[in-house]
């Protein structure tokens, strides 16, 4: 799931201070699951903006709306019809939604309400953790399913560095050393010998360093 978190209210107020009519647009996808941009968050943010601006002596008319997803044209395109009613659309989707609206709705002034942070999992209520870097060249079969690219501070490929101590990463006591976990996992699977192999230098083109990425499945193309 894509994890995001709402920007600080001050920043958002600054963003929308010139608007008379604003559409706060939520998304029922990932951001709703990670409590950043679903229905509830939309209404909370809308009230907060109303209050915040009224304290500055400004009035604003806000409409609240939440789409099933902001990453599909069928939900986005209708925005084109009433876009002129609003000075801006404050999207509470991940960066994908914001981009998509900007791409498809020429007249819409779209603003991001969230910082899109990482691909992660929900550990417990209120806690998410990064699990994948979306690097486009998965090595999880070599590492017991645990990702050194996303979860090692230096994205090491060949085992733990000298800063691994008691299963913790040297950068912060709260961070576990993923290579210790990989070592433990592979040992448990009687696969620890695999760690003797040298993993060759990575090709980072698929990780975005080769330019914007795109995926095509011919069989599904219209």
């Amino acid at each position, binding site marked *: 799931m894509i994890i995001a978190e709402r920007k600080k209210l001050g920043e958002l107020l600054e963003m929308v201070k010139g608007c008379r009519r604003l559409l706060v647009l939520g998304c029922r996808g990932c951001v709703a699951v990670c409590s950043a941009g679903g229905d509830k968050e939309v209404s909370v943010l809308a009230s907060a903006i109303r209050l915040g601006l009224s304290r500055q002596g400004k009035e604003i008319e806000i409409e609240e709306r939440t789409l099933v997803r902001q990453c599909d044209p069928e939900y986005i395109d209708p925005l084109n019809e009433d876009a002129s009613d609003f000075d801006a659309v404050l999207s509470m989707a991940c960066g994908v939604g914001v981009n998509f609206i900007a791409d498809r709705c020429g007249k819409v002034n779209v603003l991001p309400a969230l910082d899109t942070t990482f691909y992660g999992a929900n550990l417990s209520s209120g806690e998410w953790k990064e699990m994948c870097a979306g690097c486009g060249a998965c090595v999880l079969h070599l590492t017991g399913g645990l990702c050194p690219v996303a979860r090692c501070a230096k994205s090491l490929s060949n085992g733990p*560095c000298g*800063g*691994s101590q008691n299963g913790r990463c040297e950068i912060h006591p709260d961070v576990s050393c993923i290579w210790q976990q990989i070592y433990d996992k592979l040992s448990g699977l009687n696969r620890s010998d695999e760690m003797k192999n040298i993993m060759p230098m990575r090709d980072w083109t698929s990780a975005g360093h080769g330019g914007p990425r795109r995926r095509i499945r011919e069989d599904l193309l219209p």
Partner: protein
Amino acid sequence: MKAGSNLENVLRSGAFAVTGELGPPKSGDLELVRKKARILKGFVDAVNITDCQTAIVRMSSLTAGLAALAEGVEPVMQMTCRDRNRIGMQADILGASALGVKNLLCLTGDHQKFGNHPQSKGVFDMDSIQLLQMVKGMRDEKKFQCGEEIKGNEPSLFLGCAANPFADPFEFRPVRLAKKVAAGADFVQTQIIYNLEKFAKFMEMVRDLGVHEKCFILAGVTPPKSLGMARYMKKFVPGLDVTDEVLARLSDAKDQREEGINICVDIIRQVQDIPGVAGVHVMAIEWEEAVPEIVKRAGLSDRPEPKGIEPVLSSSSSIEKAVEDARKEVRIEFEEELERARTEAQASRELVIKEKEKVASEISDLKKQIEEARTMASHKEAEVRKLTEEIQKAKKELEASQAAGPAQAPPVAAASPPPGPGAPPPPGGPLTDREQKVLESLNLGLQALKSVLGLDDSQFEALRRFLEAEFMLQLGQIPAPAPPPPRPPVTEPAPPVPEAEPAPAEEAKAPRVEEAAEEKTARNKEVVNLVAKGNLALHSGDYNGAIEAFEKALSIDSTDEKARAGLADAKAALQKALSAVKEAPEEAAAAPEGLPPRPEEIDEQWWKEKWVIRYTAMGNVALMKGDYDQAVSAFEKALALDASNEKAKAGLERAKNRQGIFIPEVKAGQAPAAVKEAEAAPKPEAEEAAEEKKEAPPEKPVEEPEAKAEKEVKKEEKPQAKPAAPKIEISAPAGEGVGEIAVSPLSKEEPPLSERAGDIPEDVYKEACSGAIQSVTLGDGEKAISVGGETALPFYNFEGDMPNPPRVAFEVLDSEPEEWPDVLTKYFADCLGDPAAWAKKCVEEYNAKSICLSLISTDPNGADVAPADAAAVAQKVVEAVDVPIIFWGCGNAEKDTETLREITGRIGEKKVCLGPLTDANYRTLGATAMAFQYPVVASTPIDVNLAKQLNILLENLGVHLDHILMDPSIGAVGYGLEYTYSVMERIRLAALTQQDDKLSCPFIVNLGREVWKAKETRLPTDGMLGDQERRGVLMEAITASALLLAGGELMVMRHPKSAALTEALVEGLL
């Protein structure tokens, strides 16, 4: 041979190799590199040049490596994967090799988070193993990483890697080393070894894998520079295993640096015995000077002749010439400057010599004069002696004649004096002709004597002459009514004569004597004799005799001025003596020495008062010096003179108290000596008055009308309070309630730095900061205080502003403290159980600008007082004082949340400060604080990053940085002060110089509780550790002052005296 480097040569020859380490400077100063290289040269086979170690920007390892090479020291260039991608790295590798670098150590690199640019993007295009593969490919296969061929010169490098035997997982470490060797490592340098057992085990596993045969293993060693450094490495450097044995050796050592070198040498000796170890890598971090010593002591100083060290660049003559020219230019400038300075120095030296000569000639002139005077005096003395002998002879003749006919001998005096007690019967009888003649000759002698001495102005000599003559007369003719004093005729003023008297008396007498001698012929001889006798008697203390003599003289010639004056003198003296006798019994009981006689012009009562004051002052001085015996005797003397004197009483009590507690260091002889000294040099009145003033202020509060209870408390306090810091002069302004707490201000340096710096341009010593510290306001109303706001390092007033002085907050506990030592509780004895009264006392008596209420009673592991009850107490404190209040919870995150919320519920709008907020409760408490706009204390365990993180979390929550005080966690002096200092300093530097605004909050430093829980503040007074209170006060004050310098802005303290000292320090520095 892979690269032909010196290191490779040494290792392949089988010799035990030694490498060193050189950290490039955080500047472009190449000379620093050269200097370090020169220290190491000849003692190591190669030197590692670090590549921005700990992710701090430094001169690049390639540049510094080339500088080392030019000095004839072979570099091992380190290269990390953190800052460059494969393109940049390969480019640098080509360049390095081309310029003569022959060793390359491949590292992944420390994470950028640890350095001075934590916001940077870490590259990590590859890891160290892949880097080894890449360079090996370039060297052996002449291929770039992409597979493209290197056409032309390929890099020729001896490849190294690092290995940490002490990181986890331990079993994987040898495997990882094997991977590195397989990837291309020719040699390996290990992490610093202290735990030899673990290292031996690691090597055993390495040998099992056969790795030691495929590469050279150099054991990493570091001499610990101090115990602090060793502790720091153990605590904060991940993967560094400093053993307890090493710590113990350092802490037992007299010279820690020396022991550090010994430890290092011992480790080198031991790793030499481990099979597979081919050398050592000596890392003396910023202590390069230690390396030669270590290498020598380890018996490794006989290094093989270096081979293959050829700097490529420095051979270029043009560069050399440019350098030479630049040097010349600098030298000329320097020499000019030097010459100028020399001329100036010479000129001033000559001036000084001239002055000296002038003074010397003056002195020698004076000496000559003195010498002349002396010769003249001795000359005259000889004459006097001669004349005296003549007189003696005459007297003998007179006696002989008296013996012949005593009955006929007439008295010289007109009437015979009445017999004094025990006086022999007067001889009486008229003078025979012969005696008359003798007397005449005597008079002639006197006349001669006078004419001789008349030249000499010395009143002293005149007196002597006169008295001598008189004495002769008395012996021969009329015995004095009282026996003459049992000492030789005066040559000096008689000791019992009051000090003040001799001078005026003698002055008055001298001219008189001269006059008398001149008029002698015209006056009745008898009168003259009687007057002389009277004067002698007066001087020898026989006042009755003197009066009689003068009266007799007057009866003969009532107009004689001398006699009249003498009579008056004698009567006055008698009167004085009588009154002195009256007092004697009283005085003798209390003061064995008694009072020195009072000068006549001074009223009796006043004289006594003076001495009471003087004795009290002497007592106080002795008390300050710690000489309590003397103090007691002085105060007792004062009390004997005036039993009702309050000051003396208080002083005596104080002195006795201390006398009881202290083992007096003063030797027995010292006390009387000091008394004598004080008496021998009576202080002028001005000084005495000053003394009186000095001791007066501490007493004043007692005399002022105050509540009785308070008065009593104060009296109890004072005796101990004052000696607590005897060296610190106490000069409280009169009328202030806490005289004994106040501290005299530090002297401020008058001339500004720019003046003191002389010709040094400002930009040399000034380094303006780019950041600023937030200003946080505590409390409301006119008693509100602001802390922070600096734009420079603490007290660097020449670099920026420090608009708000650091403040002291007095710590008040919400329940009676159980473990506080008496030396602390006694200041609050009357209010310990009542926090409101306690806080009030702090504000009113100790001038507290802020209060920190410690809610210790709420601790679930202690009294576990309910939040509501704790809040009720807190509310009382808030109502009692108007200074800003900090509520400091018990440290249990959950309980603090409940308690502090309850408190805010009660006090509402009043601006207090809440703390400590930790990562466990910052959300709830942060929200509460935000609702009321309270400042908060963000508390983290001694760590820069944790402190920053909590600030970020709070800011994300909506708490502004100008409402956050950082509590970095404190260690008292002797209990980790250096860690605290270091962390605070780093935080402050980050905020001021690295624009790390998330760390720009002011510090609150809760140090009182740390200091006063230290064992040293609890141990009683003894001979070795000294006075308990003084010790505690100084520990607290020293901790405070150290942390003030690290950036502390709000110091939470306990002892009023140390608080006062701290405030005085701040005052003095600003």
